[in-house]
């Protein structure tokens, strides 16, 4: 078991090195020098800043040394300084992180609260009207572009009805939760299709019709059948969803934070893209890769910990 976990972390680390190589290629692809970029449209650099920048990018050294040095900095947690405001990238990420975590955490909660009961209800009566209805609607929701939904909801609830704030996080005195209603809705609806179908498929597999029938005959209620038979067995596959949901939510955050002008990591990433702020861009891409990898590793390990078939094999 321990060997398995160690192996899993080993491959995850290898993959992460692959990701850094990819990011490093991105740096090399960027035209012009980082120094020219840093001066572009801004106050010229002082001599000491120029030297610091040259040292950071190791411009005087060959490519492999540049890459290894960059990896070394990374390992020490040094992500470099933003080209635009010259503050440490880690500091800028730190101040944006809480809002993004709150946004994604709430969206995940809402998503699970809607999708799990929906999938469970569909699993109790496969091919019933409810089952087909939820399949049709969840696939329809899945195809609705997030930013379009956001625009329409803003028009309806903020402009027309005036119930909710249009954007931002609360400089207008309204509590944060009101500002988050629309963004959280937009971030969560897309996953309903995937998660509810996933729950349905797993519950059907773990509760065959014969088991359902005999449990009903013994007088068990629908809910307790699902709880006793279904979720115990389906809980593990549910954990594997982490590997799928994390990248989807990262991408969703970028769009949603942009439309609702929330100062989180998504808008930090976008601003870095608009301003060609390479250190911030790289750090954010790496961070999202690491988060995704952590999600996949977590779900793999959870899977082998809880499922005796996998554990033995």
């Amino acid at each position, binding site marked *: 078991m321990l060997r398995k976990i160690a192996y899993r972390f080993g491959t995850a680390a290898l993959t992460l090195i692959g*990701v850094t190589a990819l990011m490093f290629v991105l740096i090399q692809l960027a035209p012009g020098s980082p120094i020219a970029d840093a001066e572009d449209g801004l106050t010229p650099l002082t001599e000491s800043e120029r030297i610091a920048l040259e040292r950071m990018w190791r411009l005087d050294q060959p490519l492999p040394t540049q890459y290894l040095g960059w990896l070394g900095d990374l390992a020490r947690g040094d992500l470099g300084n933003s080209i635009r405001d010259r503050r440490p990238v880690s500091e800028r990420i730190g101040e944006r992180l809480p809002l993004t975590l709150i946004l994604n955490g709430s969206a995940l909660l809402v998503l699970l609260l809607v999708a799990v009961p929906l999938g469970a209800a569909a699993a109790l009566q496969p091919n019933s009207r409810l089952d087909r209805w939820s399949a049709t609607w969840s696939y329809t929701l899945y*195809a609705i572009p997030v930013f379009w939904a956001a625009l329409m909801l803003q*028009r309806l609830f903020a402009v027309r009805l005036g119930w909710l704030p249009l954007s931002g996080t609360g400089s207008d005195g309204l509590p944060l939760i009101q500002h988050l209603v629309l963004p959280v809705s937009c971030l969560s609806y897309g996953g309903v299709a995937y998660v509810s179908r996933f729950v349905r498929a797993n519950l059907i597999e773990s509760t065959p019709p014969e088991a359902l029938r005999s449990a009903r005959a013994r007088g068990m209620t629908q809910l307790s059948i699902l709880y006793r038979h279904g979720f115990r067995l389906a809980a593990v596959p549910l954990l594997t969803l982490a590997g799928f949901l994390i990248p989807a939510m*990262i991408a969703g955050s*970028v*769009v949603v934070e942009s439309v609702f002008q929330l100062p989180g990591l998504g808008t930090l990433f976008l601003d870095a893209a608009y301003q*060609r702020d390479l250190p911030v861009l790289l750090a954010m*891409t790496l961070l999202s890769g690491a988060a*995704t990898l952590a999600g996949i590793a977590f779900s793999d390990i959870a899977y082998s910990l809880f499922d005796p078939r996998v554990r033995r094999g």
Partner: protein
Amino acid sequence: MDNSNRRRSFLHNRSLRAGLLALILLSLFAAIAPALSNDPYQVDLSVTLEPPSSSHLLGTDALGRDVAARIAYGARVSLGVALMTALLSLLIGAPLGVAAGYRGGWIDAIVSRCIESVACIPTLLLAISLLAVSPASLRQLPDVLRVAIVLAFGGWIPVARYLRGEFMRLRSSALVESARASGAGEWRIVVHHLLPAAMAPIWVTAAFAAAAAIMVEAVLSFLGLGVQPPQPTWGGLLSEAREQINSGWWLALTPGLALFLSVWGFNQLGEGLRQWQDPRSTRR
């Protein structure tokens, strides 16, 4: 299931029919774009922000341009990016996946690490980073091709991953053994005997790839990083609609519907193809 049965059930599949219908309608709309009486670039400041009427079927935007014409030209961008991305993804992903699955060994090790590394960065973030960095060779290309290349950067992953698994399975099958026994070379075995067997699911992957490409292209253009104005795109139209938040509901509604219809259409097409080629599937 024999072949005639299979052909008959092709159009009996509801998802397949719905998807094809949506996509044919959109393609027609894109094809007749020049025949629409209005020019998508024609600025007319005397008719700004007019609601739908007989002269402008879907209204006009803040510069008095005809929204219907702009959506029709936007369809060309979306469908173009979708097809090109799907094609590029196949061209990159198929050889890599086949080589990794059929040969195994160090080729497989390298390809697999590449797949895992690229796959753990969300496509949207990878595309935005690439467009932001924008190397000189990329910058000279037409917008549509540039966006397609950037999307294919992550788009080849599902293709390669699927084919790798499939060829790993096929490599030790009787199919290969009998072909080899009859004297076929390795190349011939792959191209003539194995690829056809693995092809049907590839179309499924391509349809889903096209749906994803349309969605991401729209997001990129909405964020101002994809196809640049004044060329009309659905994402760009929605970005303009965002500036008219207090008026002009038709500006936000119709490009979004077009976008939804095409993404939904490709998804239905993929789902239908999947059901059609999977003999175990019951919903036909």
